[in-house]
């Protein structure tokens, strides 16, 4: 806490007078309804206070295990008049260390403000009269959600557990998959007000030293008041914040994180969000679903090919439609051209306007579906399907081939395993359509080239974005376009980022 925010009547020093200490705490926690003070008296007649935040600590632990034991055991052997605070403290310390079966972390704080911070993080503090120290005991008991299946990354076959908001649970979800001392988790606290705990996790030996150092450096650089979600961190550590492409991978799945740790990547777990960041993020990594590795490899390969196709079609399908129907009639097979032409006959708008209107309507529908509560969302989709799909075509305002194109684009964009990458392609579709409308295929090609140049120049934590396609790695490519057989992958070394360093 910055000194200028201190209440005036707080000295910031602990002394042996319990009441004075208590007053200081009360001044700091003024108007904090969730702070609780519980006074008690030891057998010796010594006064004591417990300070804790309700809802943050496990009250059972306070009642049953610690306090009772502490109060009872520590005071029976003490003489009735223990004025000497040093002796008392010593006694207490001795008792706690040797006699009590505490599993919790226990701290002796000489500093007032550090004990305030401990209380805020969910410890409870024990103050005794005549003791110039504060004993803080970790008994965090936050209410958390159960471990559920991740909503954004469901699988047919594979583990169903997903991260949740508590960092300690999330860490344990990773640890239980990697029971090795090689798995490191380094804690950092970020956010002047939120004091958010962040764990940098990696597999020692698998992740490159440079990468780990770079991640620590970038996280250490962060100066911010509040961290509410992983995106706050993502924006502050990514290489190019002007790019539409996500440069870190974000996932809710522990198995995905573990798989990436094994490949030599670094995970960043953030408290209070179920999303874990994995760096470096590469393009093809974001096109992979953990399920690819849980299905038979031939089928998984076919699905990967389908996914690549969907990447192309989600980006290009509407713009190709515009370019072909307005500039390159000769490229459409005659019979197809005739059927497109005949359904376009009554449409009063040029193809671009038609496509843009439909795309915007579709995106709006999609956004509405995400935000609305589920029962209402269904109503929206019915309205969307009926109004846009049926009525617009029947009224001759929109041609039916375009509706097909837009829905195929929509389906293709749902195939992205990474929602972030899908968003990038959804956005890029619009400039692509405008390029197609102004320059035809030439425009599409130019924009594609620009896009490719940008993607090739992108880097994420020192790894080129298009790894392993460019720079080309023969060993890794078999697991990019298709999913290689396990037997083949056994020979594969650690992540290419490590080789290069």
């Amino acid at each position: 806490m910055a000194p200028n925010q201190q209440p005036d009547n707080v000295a910031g020093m602990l002394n042996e007078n319990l009441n004075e200490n208590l007053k200081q705490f009360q001044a700091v926690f003024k108007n904090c309804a969730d702070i609780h003070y519980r006074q008690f008296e030891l057998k010796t007649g010594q006064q004591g206070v417990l300070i804790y935040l309700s809802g943050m600590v496990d009250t059972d632990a306070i009642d049953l295990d610690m306090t009772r034991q502490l109060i009872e055991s520590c005071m029976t052997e003490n003489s009735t008049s223990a004025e000497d605070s040093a002796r008392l403290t010593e006694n207490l310390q001795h008792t706690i260390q040797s006699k009590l079966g505490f599993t919790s972390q226990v701290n002796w704080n000489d500093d007032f403000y550090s004990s305030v911070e401990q209380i805020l993080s969910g410890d409870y503090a024990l103050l005794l009269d005549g003791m110039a120290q504060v004993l803080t005991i970790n008994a965090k008991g936050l209410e958390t959600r159960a471990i559920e299946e991740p909503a954004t990354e469901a699988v047919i076959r594979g583990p169903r557990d997903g991260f949740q908001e508590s960092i300690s649970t999330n860490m344990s979800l990773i640890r239980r998959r990697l029971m090795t001392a090689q798995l490191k988790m380094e804690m950092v606290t970020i956010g002047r007000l939120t004091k958010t705990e962040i764990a940098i996790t990696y597999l020692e030996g698998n992740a490159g030293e440079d990468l780990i150092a770079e991640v620590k450096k970038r996280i250490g650089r962060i100066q911010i008041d509040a961290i509410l979600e992983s995106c706050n961190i993502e924006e502050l550590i990514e290489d190019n914040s002007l790019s539409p492409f996500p440069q870190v991978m974000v996932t809710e799945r522990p198995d995905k994180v573990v798989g990436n740790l094994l490949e030599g990547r670094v995970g960043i777990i953030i408290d209070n969000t179920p999303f874990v960041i994995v760096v470096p993020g590469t393009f093809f990594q974001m096109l992979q679903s953990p399920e690819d590795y849980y299905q038979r490899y031939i089928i998984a390969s076919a699905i990967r090919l389908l996914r690549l196709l969907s990447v192309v079609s989600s980006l290009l399908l509407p713009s190709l439609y515009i370019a072909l129907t307005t500039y390159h009639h000769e490229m459409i097979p005659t019979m197809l051209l005739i059927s497109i032409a005949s359904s376009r006959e009554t449409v009063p708008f040029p193809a671009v306007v038609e496509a843009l209107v439909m795309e915007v309507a579709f995106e709006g529908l999609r956004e509405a579906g995400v935000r609305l509560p589920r029962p209402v969302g269904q109503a929206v989709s019915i309205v969307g399907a009926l109004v846009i799909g049926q009525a617009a075509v029947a009224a001759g305002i929109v041609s039916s081939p375009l509706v097909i194109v837009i829905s195929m684009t929509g389906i293709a964009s749902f195939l992205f395993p990474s929602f972030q990458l899908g968003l990038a392609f959804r956005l890029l579709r619009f400039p692509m359509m405008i390029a197609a409308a102004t320059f035809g295929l030439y425009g599409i090609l130019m924009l594609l080239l620009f896009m490719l140049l940008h993607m090739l120049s992108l880097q994420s934590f020192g790894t080129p974005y298009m790894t392993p396609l460019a720079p080309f790695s023969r060993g890794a490519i078999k697991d990019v376009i298709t999913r290689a057989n396990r037997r083949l992958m056994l020979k594969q070394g650690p992540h290419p980022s490590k080789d290069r360093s």
Partner: protein
Amino acid sequence: MRKPLILLLALIISLFLTGCWSRVELNDVAIVTATALDRAENNKLQVSLQILKVKMTKGISEKGGGGENATLIVSEKGETIMEAYQVIQKKIPRMVIFSHNRVIVVGDQLARAGLSPVLDFFSRHREARGNSYLLVTKGEGKEILKAPPNFEIFTAEEIREEEKARYLDSVTFRDFVFRLLEKGIEPICTQLQIVPLSGQKNDASDKKETGLAVVGAGIFHHDKLIGWMKRQDSEVLLWLKNRMKRSSMTVSMQNKDGSTGKVSVQLSKAKTSIRPRIQGEKIQFDITMHMTGELFENTTKLSIKEIQNLNKIQQVLEQEVKKRVTSTVNKLKKQFKSDAVGFGTILHRKYKKEWNETYSKRWDQEFPKIEVTTDVQFKINGTGRVNDSTLWEEEQLEK
């Protein structure tokens, strides 16, 4: 800060100033599906375009067959194709595009006068396709376009399908030009006519039902049509060029008791190799053909079970093929004096030096003098579901 902003603005504005100049919405094009070229009086050309009325096509698919024709025939006369085409364009509110023109039909009068002047337009025009089929017809090409389609939405599609099946040698515009330019082969064109679908032409009751059919081939000398070949001879051309897809042949055979029966086979494969030989002044071509077919009809008394009978049929078929080939080659040599098979190119490949030195310049004179020998091997590799004909009793069969 100001400068880059202005620059960016200028860039964005310039983006909207350029582009779009070749943009034509689908609602503003008139799709040409077929072109007919005829000779008009005063040495003029008559260009007829079959243009799709797009709004009609929807009616057909939705209402299950409208009575009205989905195409519009527009024709105009002019000194050149371009001239006529420009006049046509002025008659039509939409922009005429040639990129889906699949068929070019040429009337025989124009074909006899020479195709070169018209070929130039189609090879120069960026929209015109090399793979449009080129056909000739006896009479006016325009009439062909007018024929109502029976199966497809427009006739051009029907013609194209028929050409694609390659019942007779199909020629695309590109093929024709290539053959025209190559020495030692003369171009040909499929002959397309309107035919009554059932029976004789003078059958009054079926007058309305007509279809388009490929009936033969037009034989060219350079770019001029010089004559027609009937279906049977045109098929031989297909065999000799190794381009046969499917064909059939019927021969009659005498039974032992003097009566005759017929044998029909479907030809499934015809593999021809032609080997040239120069012997002094004489140029000889040895044609070797390997044909396979399946027996489809047999009204003779021959028992197919017996291998010697099969051999006998095969021999008769071989004779027949040989006869047909000889007759066709003789027609080309004597009647047309046009090397439609491309014996010249075959000679060129084998005797490069001789060809370049002597024959290439006077192949027109040399071609009628060539000698051709034919050797045919016919193999029947199937007799259908039954072995012996059901027409005859077991005892009647010749074993």
